[in-house]
């Protein structure tokens, strides 16, 4: 899973931390009692025996070094996993396990954490067993401090090669399936367009209407396939963010030209405000495209005929903002906490039978936050005057921010799939 940073999440983490602090005090008390435990016959040291038994029986590979980094203890699980006996490694540095494929930057981060007396957890360290076999690890290391002095370092690691492999297989499977689906979908799409182009003769009204239904549906399936591919890349953390100088207004115009037919069909009044938009910002063009594509197409989809859609791009202190407001159905209060969840669709629009796959906002939020941006909304966002003159609250306003300094780059092997050309 990705580590997101937004105010909500920070609050949540803070709450979790103080709850953990409480349970930690309870657990510490129990530990002190356990270690002071004496047998009924009065034998001291029973408490220590309990801990020794626990660590030897643990299935996690556990190691302790002195402050110089010399191994002074490994447990049974460590010997089993690595193939080394304690006698082989006693007094040696644990780096004897490390594969050269481990990125140096991770080791640097580890030492930064340890010298600040912080624990460090990573899944980027690759180890090598005694027989040479390499395996990916979930690795954690922490200073063991007593009376304000670091005396030892403890580390625990597990072999996660199997899990990583199954992630890879799943990712490749999704890629392969989407590629296999795209060929027949392209055929349906293109042949519908050829029929509608009237180059081989005019269709009558009904025929044209039927073929249009086919074309619209196949486009929905194509965008669903793309969305599933993106969800898979988001969940596996394999997507890249490549900021480059782009004009947000330019991207917005590109998306609007794709949506032109729908805007005209529903007679939507579109108000665009680009006056305060920055000429350019360092942003990933695919993420920018998805932001406008999702927010604008949602606004148009969920606004009744003749409604308004406002788009504004501007700068507010440290952030460039994108504001999309509509006079649509709004998002019911009770469902507002769920709209960024995967596959979630609001009850009021499901009833109205408006198409949607419930993935768009999830993808936008996940990618945007990984890039250092935020997305929020309010609903209702305005007031509509009914034909009888009475007023009614309506509409939704989405608010996106991207730091003026630009999106955070992120290395990954996969780019995101969009309808925009590359």
């Amino acid at each position, binding site marked *: 899973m990705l580590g997101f940073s937004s105010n909500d999440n920070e609050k949540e983490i803070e709450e979790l931390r103080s709850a953990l602090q409480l349970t930690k005090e309870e657990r510490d008390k129990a530990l002190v009692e356990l270690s002071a435990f004496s047998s009924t016959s009065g034998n001291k040291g029973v408490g220590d025996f309990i801990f020794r038994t626990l660590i030897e029986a643990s299935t996690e590979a556990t190691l302790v070094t002195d402050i110089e980094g010399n191994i002074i203890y490994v447990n049974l699980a460590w010997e089993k996993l690595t193939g080394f006996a304690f006698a082989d490694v006693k007094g040696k540095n644990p780096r004897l396990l490390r594969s050269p494929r481990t990125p140096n930057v991770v080791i640097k981060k580890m030492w930064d954490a340890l010298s600040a007396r912080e624990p460090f957890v990573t899944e980027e360290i690759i180890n090598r067993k005694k027989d040479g076999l390499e395996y990916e690890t979930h690795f954690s290391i922490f200073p063991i401090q007593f009376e304000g002095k670091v005396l030892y370092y403890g580390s625990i690691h597990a072999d996660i090669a199997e899990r990583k492999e199954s992630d890879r297989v799943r990712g490749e499977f999704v890629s392969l399936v*989407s590629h296999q689906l*795209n*060929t027949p979908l*392209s*055929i349906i799409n293109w042949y519908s367009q050829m029929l509608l182009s009237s*180059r081989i003769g005019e269709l009558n009204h009904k025929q044209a209407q039927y073929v249009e239904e086919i074309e619209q549906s196949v486009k929905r399936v194509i965008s669903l396939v793309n969305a599933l591919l993106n969800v898979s890349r988001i969940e596996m953390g394999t997507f890249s963010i490549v900021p480059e100088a782009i004009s947000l207004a330019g991207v917005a115009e590109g998306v609007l030209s794709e949506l032109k037919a729908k805007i005209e069909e529903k007679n939507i009044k579109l108000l665009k405000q680009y006056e305060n938009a920055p000429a350019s910002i360092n942003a990933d063009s695919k993420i920018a495209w998805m932001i406008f594509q999702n927010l604008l197409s949602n606004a148009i989809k969920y606004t009744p005929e003749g409604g308004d859609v406002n788009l504004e791009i501007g700068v507010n202190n440290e952030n460039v903002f994108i504001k999309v407001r509509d006079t649509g159905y709004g998002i019911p209060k009770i469902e507002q906490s769920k709209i960024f969840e995967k596959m979630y669709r609001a009850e009021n629009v499901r009833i109205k039978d408006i198409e949607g796959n419930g993935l768009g906002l999830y993808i936008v939020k996940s990618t945007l936050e990984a890039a250092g941006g935020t997305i929020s909304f309010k609903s209702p966002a305005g007031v509509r005057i009914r034909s009888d003159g009475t007023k009614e609250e309506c509409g939704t306003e989405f608010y996106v921010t991207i730091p003026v300094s630009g999106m955070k780059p992120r290395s990954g092997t*996969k*780019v995101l*799939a969009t309808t925009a*050309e590359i």
Partner: protein
Amino acid sequence: MSKILIVEDETPLRTALVDTLLNEGYEVLEAKDGQEGLATALNDKPDIILLDLLMPKMSGLEVMEKLRADGWGKKVPIIVLTNRVPDDKIMADVTKYEPAFYLVKATLNLDDVVAKVKATLEKKG
């Protein structure tokens, strides 16, 4: 009139491209795999090539590699037309050969293909 070569192994997709571009008034050549595509290209010297990537006998990447090594072929504009959503590796491989565009078929309308062909030919002058 400009001469276009379409290299695509999926017959229905190839036919759609051939029919559409013929209708636009271009002279159209077609090839059903990479090997045939390369031979036709070197023999007939089209003004532009629409090239699929995953094909039997010879991949689109190999076709580009061989074309770019040829005196005439190193300058012919190529539009890559594929259904592979690119990852870093594909992009690194493809951009080496400087195609005019990398287009994903499923998200593309036939009108867009025509527009890209026109734009590329105009740029070529």
